[in-house]
């Protein structure tokens, strides 16, 4: 299968987030992925440097790729993990795809923060909401700080030459923020039909797209 032609992902303007951020925040992983795929690959499949992709099932090519695994979102939508029999020789990360994906995952992460706030506000301990506890407030603040930093980096329009290493580090940072937020949800963050599932799929999509930075 020939590599899809990579177009520019729809960027934000003047430091504003890209539209995939808002779609992910308001509508979730699959609608945002679909939008990004349509814009960046024209509906094609962006196989990463290892020859893998995780996409909504309707974007999977009919031939030429092996289905490695299938996943369901909490909304019942299906994603497939694919492997090309012959990965791209160049192994070059698709920068536009990675950048759009970073904005998308940041949107999911910020939605996860909102989920945490709702959950913590309703959970009581000793007669008061968990949100009144300083340790919890500190953890929420730490996550928000990380998200703000990621947002600021992605919105830096002075960067015109993203390397896959830099984008890999950003994806790692988003993963770590999400892990911190999931810890706040306790066991509720571990349910297969809860916010933890969406976060797991977010990690999977990134894993297929880019190699983690070892020293993140």
């Amino acid at each position, binding site marked *: 299968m020939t590599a899809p032609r990579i177009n520019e992902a729809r960027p934000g303007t003047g430091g504003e987030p890209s539209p995939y951020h808002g779609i992910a925040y308001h509508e979730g992983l699959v609608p945002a992925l679909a939008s990004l795929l349509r814009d960046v690959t024209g509906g094609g499949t962006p196989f990463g440097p290892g020859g*893998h992709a995780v996409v909504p099932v309707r974007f999977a090519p009919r031939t030429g790729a092996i289905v490695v695994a299938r996943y369901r979102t909490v909304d019942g939508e299906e994603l497939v993990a694919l492997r090309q029999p012959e990965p791209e020789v160049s192994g070059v990360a698709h920068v536009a795809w990675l950048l759009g994906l970073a904005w998308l995952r940041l949107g999911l992460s910020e939605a996860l923060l909102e989920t945490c706030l709702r959950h913590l506000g309703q959970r009581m301990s000793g007669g008061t909401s968990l949100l009144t506890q300083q340790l919890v407030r500190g953890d929420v603040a730490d996550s928000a700080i990380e998200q703000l930093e990621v947002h600021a980096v992605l919105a830096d329009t002075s960067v015109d030459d993203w390397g896959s290493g830099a984008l890999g580090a950003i994806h790692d940072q988003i993963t770590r923020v999400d892990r911190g937020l999931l*810890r706040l949800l*306790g066991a509720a963050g571990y349910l297969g039909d809860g916010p933890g599932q969406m976060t797991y799929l977010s990690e*999977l999509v990134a894993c*297929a797209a880019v190699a983690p930075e*070892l020293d993140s």
Partner: protein
Amino acid sequence: MIELDERLRMLQSEARGWADEMRVHALALDRTPDRLRELTDLAPMAFLATAMIPPRYHPRPLTLSGHRYYGTDPLERAVVIEEAASADCAMVLAAPGPSLAGVAVDLLGDDEQKAWFYDRVLQRPTWTFFALTEPDHGSDAAAMETALLPASDAMARTGADAAPAGLLRGRKRYIGNADRAALGVVMARIRPGPLGIGSVLVETSAAGFSARSLPMIGLRAAKFCDVVFDDVAVEQKRVLGAGLPRTRQGMWAAVQLLNRIRPGVAAMALGIARGAYDYVRTNRRTLKATEQERLDWLGRRVHAVRQLVRTAAVAVARDPSDGTTASAAKARACRLAEEATLAALGFFGAGARLEHPMLDKYARDARGVEFMEGTENIQRLTVFQGVLAGRSKRRPHLAR
């Protein structure tokens, strides 16, 4: 540094062989948790099925070269659990045996209750459960809703000839093995007031008991469940701790129990971290300099947390009322499990979770130990209380 004596080294060596048996089945069990019943003959499962039964009630403990192992010593458990969890933490959690319920019976049960419980577990591989956490209140004892209705109500509703202690009504959540268990311990409000929390023994065959497994991201074989007690009749002889002061029946007992268990949970997290570390060492024979540095760092972290876990096990054996070091170990080990499993993926590049499903499983399982027996923040608060009370005894060499 805590070094293992000959007796424990022998057990560790045996447990490493068990881990090899377990590793073969890990992924298949993750896909199909009900396959667990096919694995009860595995040597590690047989050990766990009767581990933590006190010597008085355990006629046939594991014996190696004349050494007997009951699994009641926290360091013994930490050694075994680290090895087993390095292969499959879910299988450790899913194993039949007395587990937390057995510890509760040991703490609170009278002789008759202990004999009844341990005899049941010894007859055949028997799953048990321990139910504390509730859907809306977590482990907040003050807000506990599950309750044992008074006996007069129970007799009127059931028409039983024997006088039950009451009817158990309520819901618990995230209860491991509940849908495959035969019996278990339920913490409930058994009387009004701040000292009203107690524990009762329940058989899952009782009318009104139901359990439904929940879909989980990882540790799928462990089958965390929603449990409903719909007016389950509880006989007086199944109420634990009736002969103990009320101050020792409720959350005091729960704290003692969790302190005893916590080094084992820390060992599970350590095992997951070590499993991921071992996977990298086995599957990446040639490393770049930066990769080798990173792997060496991981190895040092695993070693350090192992020492902390063993220190905690020794401390809990000495004084089960002091959970400071156990909380430190649990917090540290769980964080290491997440960091190590993410770091391990980094050695295999893009697509690692798809090409190395065992690493994906380690990474999913690592998140599951974080909320068991208290989240990281709860452990941090316990450590703080211990520091304040001077119980950490961090620097005995500075004493004058």
